[in-house]
């Protein structure tokens, strides 16, 4: 095993190499794991502020400057809340579910490259790793619903799991696109492949599909069936109170921002700041860009009404899934054709290598792929519009019929 940085220092100081390595890994993990946990505290404040502005309110503004310390106040309040475990609950699983829920989101951060030189673990299966880890969250919801031993909790958990599971299909298909373009599942390699051109310009449709399905994965509006208050009391976490409820809450808030970071890495070029590769600038640049999808997500959440579950399911199975499959196939086909023509930058072995190409070399390829994506979208949007018009007309007709019947 290699031993650099802190590990090297410790070994020179006379520590056993194995122990030194373990200590350096432990420190790294602590650093990486605290980033999301600290972030979430401020995310809650940011989200409440943004939501308030969208709804024409002020938001938290009492505790600390601009209400910045509101979250800490809430934290203290949560600490002092009574924590009730229902008598009929399965105690072990009931207590394990919130931990698993938060851990599932925090684990994603292990593969996030913060800067060119700082990444928790550069796994060569990074993209698959985060999908796999995120699926632990689904299991956590299932466990929470079952262990509460409450009809509504279980019913809510069932619905949510059916929803999450359905939206994972377009998510994974959209994920195939950056993986295919970069020729690697490693997050670092995917960022390097975007040094010339962001993938969002090559595959905007995949980016949008990924965004929509990750919005559904977090259970935010318009997909917030997780807490369809009017239908399901409160969903799977109905029996949870105090800090354990706070864990589910924190996991959800963190998940939204994590998705922003993932979209930034997969489609918006990650930390890659043109020209500079200073760690601090790269880190800020990543955070800044992650804020764009994060903000759009909040914007949607606060302005779009909740859909019914049958609508949500229909949207997924009859629209997102076919579209994401077609998208992957067309992209694969075009990449192959472009490679034959010679518009795709290749390395000496004839394999596609986007990481070695600059902006200009990538431009023709990007334009073709972008236009193809737009061409896929045009008939679909038209069809959607026609369907909408038809449905509205049908409803209008029904209403006039009823009015006539009432008039008679």
């Amino acid at each position, binding site marked *: 095993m*290699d031993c650099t940085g802190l590990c090297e220092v410790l070994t020179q100081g006379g520590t056993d190499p194995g122990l030194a390595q373990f200590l350096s890994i432990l420190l790294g993990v602590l650093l990486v794991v605290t980033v999301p946990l600290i972030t979430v505290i401020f995310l809650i404040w940011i989200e409440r502020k943004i939501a308030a502005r969208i709804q024409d309110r002020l938001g938290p503004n009492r505790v600390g400057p601009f209400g910045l310390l509101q979250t800490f106040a809430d934290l203290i309040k949560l600490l002092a809340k009574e924590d009730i475990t229902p008598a009929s609950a399965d105690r072990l699983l009931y207590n394990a579910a919130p931990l698993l829920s938060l851990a599932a989101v925090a684990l994603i951060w292990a593969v996030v490259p913060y800067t060119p030189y700082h990444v928790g673990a550069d796994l060569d299966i990074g993209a698959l790793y985060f999908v796999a880890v995120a699926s632990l969250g689904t299991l956590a919801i299932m466990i929470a619903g079952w262990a509460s031993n409450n009809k509504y909790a279980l019913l809510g958990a069932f619905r949510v799991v*059916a929803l999450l599971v359905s939206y994972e299909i377009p998510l994974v298909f959209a994920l195939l696109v950056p*993986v295919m373009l970069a020729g690697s*599942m490693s997050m670092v390699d995917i960022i390097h492949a975007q040094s010339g051109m962001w993938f969002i310009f090559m595959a905007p449709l995949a980016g949008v599909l990924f965004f929509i399905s990750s919005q559904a994965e977090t259970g935010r509006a318009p997909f917030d069936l997780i807490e369809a208050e009017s239908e399901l*009391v409160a969903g799977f976490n109905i*029996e949870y109170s*105090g800090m354990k409820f706070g864990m589910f809450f924190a996991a959800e808030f963190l998940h939204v921002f994590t998705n922003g970071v993932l979209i930034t890495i997969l489609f918006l070029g990650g930390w890659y700041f043109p020209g500079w590769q200073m760690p601090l600038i790269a880190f800020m640049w990543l955070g800044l860009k992650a804020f764009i999808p994060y903000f759009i997500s909040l914007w949607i959440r606060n302005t779009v009404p909740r859909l019914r579950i049958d609508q949500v399911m*229909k949207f997924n*199975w009859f629209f997102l899934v076919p579209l994401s499959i077609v998208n992957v196939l067309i992209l694969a086909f075009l990449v192959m054709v472009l490679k034959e023509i010679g518009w795709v930058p290749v390395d000496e072995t004839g394999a596609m290598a986007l990481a070695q190409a600059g902006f200009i070399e990538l431009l023709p390829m990007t334009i073709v792929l972008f236009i193809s994506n737009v061409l896929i979208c045009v008939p679909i949007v038209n069809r959607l519009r026609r369907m909408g018009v038809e449905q509205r007309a049908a409803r209008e007709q029904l209403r006039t019929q009823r009015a006539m019947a009432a008039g008679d």
Partner: protein
Amino acid sequence: MDVLNEWAFIGVFLVLAPILPVLPIMGAWLFRPKRANVLKSQTYECGVETVGDTWVQFRVQYYIYGLIFLVFDVEMVLLFPWAVAYHKLSFFAFAAGLLFIFLLTDALIYAWRKGILIWR
């Protein structure tokens, strides 16, 4: 060996990630009131007595969604290597992938036409 080093990081992370959320819960245990009574620890159903079994019978629909998801998930097992290797593959490989996805879409189209995917 350095591949395993990356995974050692994940391993330590895996142990720590559930432990860190335990800390605030432990902290809450110190501060929170502990006055449990029978009424409080009843199942929360808006004050109404629980009617019938908790494990109400569910529709097969849920299972079918899970089933289709499983099939697509397993498809990913074979499609991800295909996508990763795509940059060095030939046209033949594209045809193979196309056929693979096409065969699977068959099943989806079947489910589609039978009206199974509509939530009832």
